């Protein structure tokens, strides 16, 4: 919803009393809003889960499910907990009003509702909602859904927690050379298409992109939200990314443009995931040996002339489900001992 506070909003009126329902609906329609009505809390929740509304006007005393229960259910529902609620009631006693506010109601209007007051309160609530929606939209654009959700649930705090996850690094081979042969506009367009395709593949397997730098990206599987099988998610994503690039190359050849190739490194194990940076500017990221190893494996794809390289813990987690080729022990910068590196056979389904 992107309505301006002064423009029409989609509102839901809940009241078990027909006279109250008609009157409130009428007042809101006269203010230019689109209004639906429900006769009790249960019906209202069903409607809220089916359709999107900008604001709920809620009566408290109702049969079946009263207003307090509705407020409790809304607060427990991730999709609905940000929905602004104005309580309109003739409840007796300040304690009841306090309870509404504590349960998350944005405002309280005594009945009979004064139309002028209603307009002012409604305008303020809708404006606040518009700002909140805008903030969420920005967050969606600059963070992934999972990170945005984690921020909403746990709030923001610098520092991390230990998680078990799989990390992927990917980049386009010979990108610098490619970029030099074409106008920058074409390079940006190529990167946008590339990122769109890769993000789709990563997100569809539960991964979260934590870093984009030039033609390179880093994604994590299993943080901030745990995944049942992070290694399988990462390797399935890698195989899908390669397939997607092959299809993309068919288009590029048809358009008389050079094909692109990518390299992918995956490592799994324990790492620290969280927000790093300053309180003003921070990014969600993962840190640790596992992350360094994934980055080194991606770099090693060029040396080994393979497309997808994984470490031993990832291969062990997948067992017989994945066909690999053992490339033997590879010395890795930052590691005292050489590590076993495996190349994932392309074209297989996990």
């Amino acid at each position, binding site marked *: 919803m992107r309505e301006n506070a002064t423009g029409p909003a989609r509102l839901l009126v809940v009241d*078990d*009393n*027909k*006279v*109250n329902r*008609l*009157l409130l609906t*009428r*007042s809101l329609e*006269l203010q230019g809003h689109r209004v639906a009505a429900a006769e009790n809390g249960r019906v209202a929740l069903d409607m809220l889960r089916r359709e999107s509304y900008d604001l709920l006007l809620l009566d408290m*005393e*109702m*049969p079946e499910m009263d207003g307090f229960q509705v407020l409790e259910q809304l607060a427990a529902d991730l999709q609905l907990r940000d929905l602004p609620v104005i309580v309109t009631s*003739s409840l*007796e006693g300040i304690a009841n009003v306090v309870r509404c506010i504590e349960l998350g109601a944005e405002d309280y209007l005594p*009945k*009979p509702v004064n*139309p002028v007051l209603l307009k002012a309160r409604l305008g303020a609530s809708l404006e606040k909602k518009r700002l909140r929606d805008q903030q969420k939209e920005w967050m969606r654009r600059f963070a992934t859904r999972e990170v945005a959700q984690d921020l909403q649930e746990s709030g923001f705090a610098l520092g991390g927690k230990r998680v078990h996850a799989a990390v992927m690094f990917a980049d386009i081979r010979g990108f610098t050379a490619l970029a030099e042969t074409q106008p920058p506009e074409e390079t940006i367009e190529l990167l946008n298409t590339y990122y769109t395709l890769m993000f789709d593949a990563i997100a569809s397997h539960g991964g979260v992109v934590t870093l984009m730098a030039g033609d390179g990206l880093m994604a994590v599987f299993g943080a901030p939200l745990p995944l049942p099988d992070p290694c399988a998610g990462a390797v399935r994503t890698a195989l899908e990314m390669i397939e997607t690039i092959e299809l993309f190359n068919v288009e590029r050849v048809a358009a008389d443009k050079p094909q692109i190739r990518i390299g992918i490194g995956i490592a799994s194990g324990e790492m620290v995931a969280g927000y790093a940076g300053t309180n003003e500017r921070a990014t969600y990221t993962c840190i640790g040996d596992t992350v360094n190893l994934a980055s080194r494996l991606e770099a090693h794809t060029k040396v080994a002339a393979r497309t997808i390289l994984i470490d031993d813990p990832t291969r062990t987690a997948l067992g017989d489900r994945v066909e690999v080729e053992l490339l033997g022990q590879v010395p890795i910068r930052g590691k005292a001992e050489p590590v076993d590196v495996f190349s994932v056979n392309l074209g297989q389904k996990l």
Partner: protein
Amino acid sequence: MTEPTIDRVTFDELKEAAGADFVIELVDTFLAEAPSMLDALRHSFATHDADVFRRTAHSLKSNANTFGAHALGAMAKALELGGLAPVVAANGQSIEALAQEYARVAAALKELRDA
């Protein structure tokens, strides 16, 4: 009776805010709904259903105040806040007193509607 059955200031404000035609519809809705609310009060009194009794009195109070029927509103509010016990003690008389006030309100509202 010092207090008028319907407070004209409240009623006229309602007409002005919601529109005269709409208020006719609203009065008709109230006249259609109120008898079943009175029945619900009597029934919940007879069956000692405190929840329904309180909720019904609450609804009546709110509707009465909407139309400016403040005496009726005050009687309904007394039932809502007092609960069943005093009504039982008085053998349901307060419900019948409220029903009589409602009859006056209904007559006054019909007059205003047809004016």
